């Protein structure tokens, strides 16, 4: 435990921070964690919010993966005194620690001139609002954004019997998740479920009257009881405006998660993990992922770094998934946008398929649709037989 901090303040009760704590305890960490989160429902699981949660009736469940021994201070972090490793809170004063770990995640991007009453989905409270609107009798929804969240919402709301229209500036659903691949397939499975798509079009205006909402796209008026904005997320770094950290797009960090100052120096004992952190690669470039898997690997890797280990957590290939329209969709590796997509397995009766995407056969990326066994074998580098 050489040089391991004894009091660690964590801002954000997320999967990344839960993993940091859990892995630290596993490795014999004997110090103290102080966790701050402004979300009154924290800690909870986010992936179900666009899916099972909207189909159910129960309350927001407290995540049972949260380490029991660590309590969460319900307050909003409003500033960081970087050199003193002190987090300023909106109430209950401030928290000083040997190390500060920032895990504030990302929040919904809102469209310019988006009127009040347009819903979005990021937090449990957002999901409760959507569910309440559907429970109150909404019959139709326009979803702005065909990314994974917008598509999952389309699937869930269609399942609840709403007439759903999805609008996106992109030509293909989940253009980023699939790196431009499988656009026709994803559009087709939306259409099969009765979802109407308007792709490659811009939203010109959003308005409402006493009856319903009108979303104007390319001169056409789409009417609905609900409008949900799912156009993407941006890192939650507003509260760090005066911290001196480099927050150009997320918090810029080195490979271990140590934050950089705007002047290019490394900030002492300030770290960022999860969606809010933008990591430096060997070639010096920075990239930021919004990924459950990556977030928890960041947490585990930082625990191992604190414990003085050479961590291999972040050497694993990226893994992402989405569940929608009766499909479990899994992605292994980084999909090259220009790469060749080859279907190597299909079982049409189960809507199952496995695709190899790659510039070469040596290190391909994989997309599995309802094919977890084939997908797993492929991502392990094994033959697809047996």
């Amino acid at each position, binding site marked *: 435990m050489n040089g391991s901090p004894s009091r660690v303040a964590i801002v954000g009760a997320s999967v990344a921070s839960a*993993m940091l704590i*859990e*892995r630290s305890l*596993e*490795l*014999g960490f004997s110090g103290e964690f102080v966790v701050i989160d402004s979300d009154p429902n924290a800690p909870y*699981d986010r*992936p179900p919010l666009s899916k099972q949660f909207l189909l159910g009736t129960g309350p927001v469940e407290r995540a*049972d*993966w949260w380490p029991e021994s660590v309590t969460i201070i319900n307050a909003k972090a409003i500033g960081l005194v970087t050199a003193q490793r002190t987090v300023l809170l909106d109430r209950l004063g401030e928290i000083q620690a040997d190390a500060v770990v920032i895990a504030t995640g990302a929040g919904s991007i809102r469209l310019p001139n988006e009127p009040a009453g347009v819903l979005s989905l990021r937090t449990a409270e957002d999901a409760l609002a959507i569910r309440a609107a559907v429970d109150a009798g909404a019959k139709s929804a326009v979803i702005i954004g065909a990314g994974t969240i917008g598509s999952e919402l389309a699937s869930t709301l269609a399942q609840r019997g709403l007439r759903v229209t999805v609008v996106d500036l992109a030509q293909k659903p989940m253009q980023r998740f699939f790196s431009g691949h499988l656009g026709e397939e994803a559009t087709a499975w939306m259409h099969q479920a009765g979802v109407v798509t308007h792709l490659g079009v811009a939203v010109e205006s959003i308005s409402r009257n006493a009856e319903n909402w009108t979303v104007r796209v390319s001169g056409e008026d789409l009417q609905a009881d609900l409008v949900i904005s799912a156009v993407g997320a941006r890192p939650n770094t507003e509260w760090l405006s005066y911290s001196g950290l480099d927050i150009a797009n997320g918090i810029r960090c080195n490979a271990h998660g140590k934050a950089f100052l705007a002047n290019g120096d490394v900030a002492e004992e300030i770290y960022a993990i999860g969606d809010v952190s933008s990591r430096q690669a060997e070639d010096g470039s920075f990239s930021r992922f919004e990924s*459950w*898997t990556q977030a*928890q690997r960041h947490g*585990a890797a930082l625990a191992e770094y604190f414990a003085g280990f050479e961590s291999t957590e972040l050497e694993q290939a990226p*893994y992402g*998934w989405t*569940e929608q329209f009766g499909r*479990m969709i*899994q992605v292994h590796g980084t999909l090259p946008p220009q790469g060749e997509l080859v279907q190597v397995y299909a079982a049409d009766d189960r809507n199952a398929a496995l695709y190899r995407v790659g510039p070469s056969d040596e290190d391909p990326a994989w997309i599995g649709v*309802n094919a*977890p*066994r084939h*997908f*797993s074998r492929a*991502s*392990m580098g094994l033959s697809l037989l047996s």
Partner: protein
Amino acid sequence: MGEIYVDGARCQGHARCWALAPETFEIDEEGYGKVIPGRENSGDELNVRKAIRNCPERAILERSDDEAPAKNEEVATS
């Protein structure tokens, strides 16, 4: 650590456990995992820890029965 098992109600068929620790987990055609009989006590092994951590549904659990060692006797071997 006590015996590990896959909670069938939580498992959504990612098959990550099998990909990370094939010596301990097996999956069915739809990706739902279970612990290979005889491997219930492998919870401290590195690959199995990795599988537990990487399960997106947190479906790999430890059976809490009277036989399970007390929490403070748990030894991190990794």
